[in-house]
């Protein structure tokens, strides 16, 4: 069914940068990036707002840039949120069919879904997502809804993401003050995974790790369905901070040193000599032994990856067949793939975004993975919602076969 092109806007308010991506979903469901607005963020730490006014100013700037670049008036956005308070849990709802009803009906499945959603969350938390993973009918797995089949017990596996309600509300408030509307809130790693993984990757088992400035978000997909997601409040900022604390260099220099010279692999050959930063006139202004610099970086990132690994369900790493997909700014660190391989022992990829056209250079960049993933998420949501509407339209067209 041919539809008009849709324009969606993805907004990620990250610890290091605020990124707004304007994407166009064409009639053939291809995505074209119309423009990107990026500015350096202030007022966000570890994925959470700590200075509302500064964050608002940054968002305003990003909005202006994105509107300029794309020539689109932005009215609403898909918002990615992250933070250590967000947690993903799996919950299974079981519903036994009443006696005398051998066939699973829609309301039975609905009941199982409701039971699964009834996971007890702390009082101040709110639900962000409840994504169905799969259904089971008398213990047999069904990836789609088992309505109409014979059975006794319907089970629905859900992945539920929840977080502290007020913090999520504040993120929404920030966007509303632009003023912009929020179409949907999405947990960052889930948005990133939309872009990083295709169906085959998910079937084979894949882990997306998005190491950003302040947080490390991860989402694990096994057998085509999400199995775990979460956020660890450690990111690139911590690496910089570590360098600052160990070497005593100021932040700006520590950051430059990290980007220009740092290496996370445990390769000894890369830790020989002295890392130097030169100023404008070519004089060396900073000198740090590479062995120390690399060790500081490696230990931090290794610990972070191990934390991710520890949080995954038991035996999950062994089930990852497709590999581990690294995104986020910190994943650009030299030697990071080797380190990730050391920790997980799985194939490591930097995802290449598929079927996206537009400003080529930018979406190859893992910095924008989450924001572009939001566009994909919007697209998927749109097709899901379009389903029933399409039926009505079809009916309408039978009566009045003109117009769009």
């Amino acid at each position, binding site marked *: 069914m041919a539809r008009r092109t849709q324009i969606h806007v993805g907004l990620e308010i990250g610890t290091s940068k605020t990124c707004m991506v304007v994407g166009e979903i064409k009639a053939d469901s291809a995505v074209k990036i119309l423009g990107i607005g990026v500015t350096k963020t202030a007022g966000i*730490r*570890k994925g959470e707002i700590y200075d509302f006014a500064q964050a608002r100013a940054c968002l305003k700037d990003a909005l202006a840039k994105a509107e300029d670049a794309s020539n689109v008036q932005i009215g609403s956005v898909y918002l990615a949120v992250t933070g*250590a308070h967000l947690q993903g*849990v*799996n*919950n*299974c709802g079981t519903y*036994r069919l009443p006696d005398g009803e051998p066939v699973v009906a829609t309301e039975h499945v609905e009941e199982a879904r409701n*039971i699964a959603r*009834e*996971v*007890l969350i*702390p009082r101040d938390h709110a639900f962000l997502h409840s994504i169905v993973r799969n259904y089971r009918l008398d213990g047999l797995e069904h990836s789609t809804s088992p309505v109409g089949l014979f059975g006794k*017990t319907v089970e629905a596996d859900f992945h539920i993401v929840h977080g502290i309600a007020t913090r999520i509300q504040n993120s929404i408030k920030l966007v509303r003050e632009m003023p912009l509307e929020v179409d949907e809130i999405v947990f960052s790693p889930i948005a990133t995974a939309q872009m990083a993984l295709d169906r085959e990757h998910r079937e084979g088992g894949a882990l997306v790790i998005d190491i950003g400035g302040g947080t490390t978000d991860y989402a694990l997909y096994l057998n085509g369905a999400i199995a775990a997601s979460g956020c*660890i*409040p*450690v990111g690139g*900022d*911590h690496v*910089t*901070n*570590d360098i*600052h*604390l*160990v070497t005593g260099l100021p*932040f700006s220099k520590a950051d430059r040193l990290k980007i220009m010279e740092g290496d996370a692999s445990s390769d000894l050959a890369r830790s020989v000599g002295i890392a130097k930063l030169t100023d404008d006139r070519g004089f060396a202004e900073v000198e740090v032994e590479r062995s120390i610099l690399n*060790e*500081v970086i490696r*230990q*931090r990132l*290794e*610990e972070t990856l191990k*934390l991710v690994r520890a949080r995954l*369900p*038991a035996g999950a790493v062994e089930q990852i067949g497709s590999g581990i997909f690294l995104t986020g700014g910190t994943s650009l660190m030299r030697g990071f793939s080797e380190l990730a391989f050391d920790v997980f022992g799985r194939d490591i990829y930097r995802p290449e975004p598929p079927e996206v056209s537009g400003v080529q250079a930018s979406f190859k960049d893992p910095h924008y993975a989450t924001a572009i993933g939001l566009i994909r998420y919007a697209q998927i949501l749109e097709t899901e919602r379009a389903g029933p509407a399409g039926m009505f339209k079809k009916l309408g067209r039978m009566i009045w076969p003109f117009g769009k």
Partner: protein
Amino acid sequence: MIPYARDPQQTIPSSTVKIIGLGGAGSNMLERIALDGMEDAELLGLNTDARTLSTCLAREKIQLGSNLTRGLGAGGDPGLGHQAVLEVESEIRSSIRGRKIVFICVGLGGGTGSGAAPIITRIAREEGAFVVVFATMPFAFEGLRRREQAETALNELAVLANALVTFDNNRMGELVLAKQGIHEAFTAADHMIGEAIKAVLRLVIRPGIINVGLDELMSALRTNRSRCLFGSGIANGKDRAAKALKNALNSPLLDQGSLLKTAQTVLVHLSGGPDLTLFEIELLMQRLQKFVPDDAQILFGAAIDQGMGDSLSITLISALPEDSLATSQRASLSHQAPENLIPDPIDELPSPQPRKASATRDAVAPETNHDAEALPLFSTEPETPKSGKHVASFTFTADESASETMMDEPEPAAMFEDKPESEALDASITPLDSASSSEVLLEMPVAPVDAEHPKLKLGIKSSGPQAELSLDSLNRGRFEGETPNVFEGEDLDLPPFLRKKK
């Protein structure tokens, strides 16, 4: 937190527990129990067959009817089993004396089991013990005769025992896969019974934060001719509450929890490591609500056990009348008249009072009062950490309320006698039990005093190395002044380079 010593007297030392395996099937169960890591419990093997008895793992063995059968079995004749046990009645009596809980494991249908079990149950009751009988019913293919013998014995046991748990061998097929060997099937069945015993012991012996004791157990099992519903599950890691409940409901005696739908009283006992959270308990109980009727009485108990590590175990105990007719009778639990009308074994004492007729009539009337009063009393008593020397034997006052009228009997005196004994044994029990429970990863029996101690130590420990590392004085750079980003005891805002170098 200020640790205080909870009175160990509240609990029943495991040394006053006896597990009896009767007959061939019983000694098999006993073996399984011993192999499953309960060697410390007092095991008593009883059999007519000297050969089987000699290979039995129990520390204590009594051969039944050595004159009557001359070391051979009872040959499937309950009459022979009955006579055989009478031969050694005094030996058995002295072996059981002073035990507060007696478990009798028996396979009904044969000679020794069917014939001797009712007698031994009676002896145990007469000695003042709380008797739980685990009986297996014969396979259908063993024929009607055997079935009838088993039914007869079961009827007697239902009246005599405090609690009767039956397992039908015909359901054994549900425990294992069809292709698995027969020994695995029997092992699984015996294992299940062993688990049940352990669960009951855990419940009664160990004190909990929310305590459940014999009184609760009794009200959970208070049905005549009942089928005991039992489920026990253990799980660890993420989502352990849900997993443990699922495992518990998987027990064949629960049929995925569907049998709980008509239960009136359900006893739930939870135990976990020090990290057991209220949140988890809430979650678990909320889930359980879906399986039990709204008006069911839920007797809830929880215990913290250092030995559990990060695992959580749940035990469900309930009883269901075998015939639906009994449901109406049981519907009013507060009326305990039918229960008390069960001829108490004490009434059938071999040496009756001269004024027995009037005495028993007197006994029945105060008994009902007694129970009604005593029950709420019991539920509060274990919670109060007062110096309750008499609390130790609290569970038996209800049982023995009838014996008040027979004060001149030697029995009550014996009961008072064993009090200091049990007290003295308390001290020795702790190491004994910890050895056994650490193996099976069940609750640790350590008194709450011990339970609170390590926690306190832990607190010191975690602050100790931090002080050594002088992390407090360490600059946190950009994250200065923020709430520490603590994950598993480490501040993630500090460089691992400095943290791990040490």
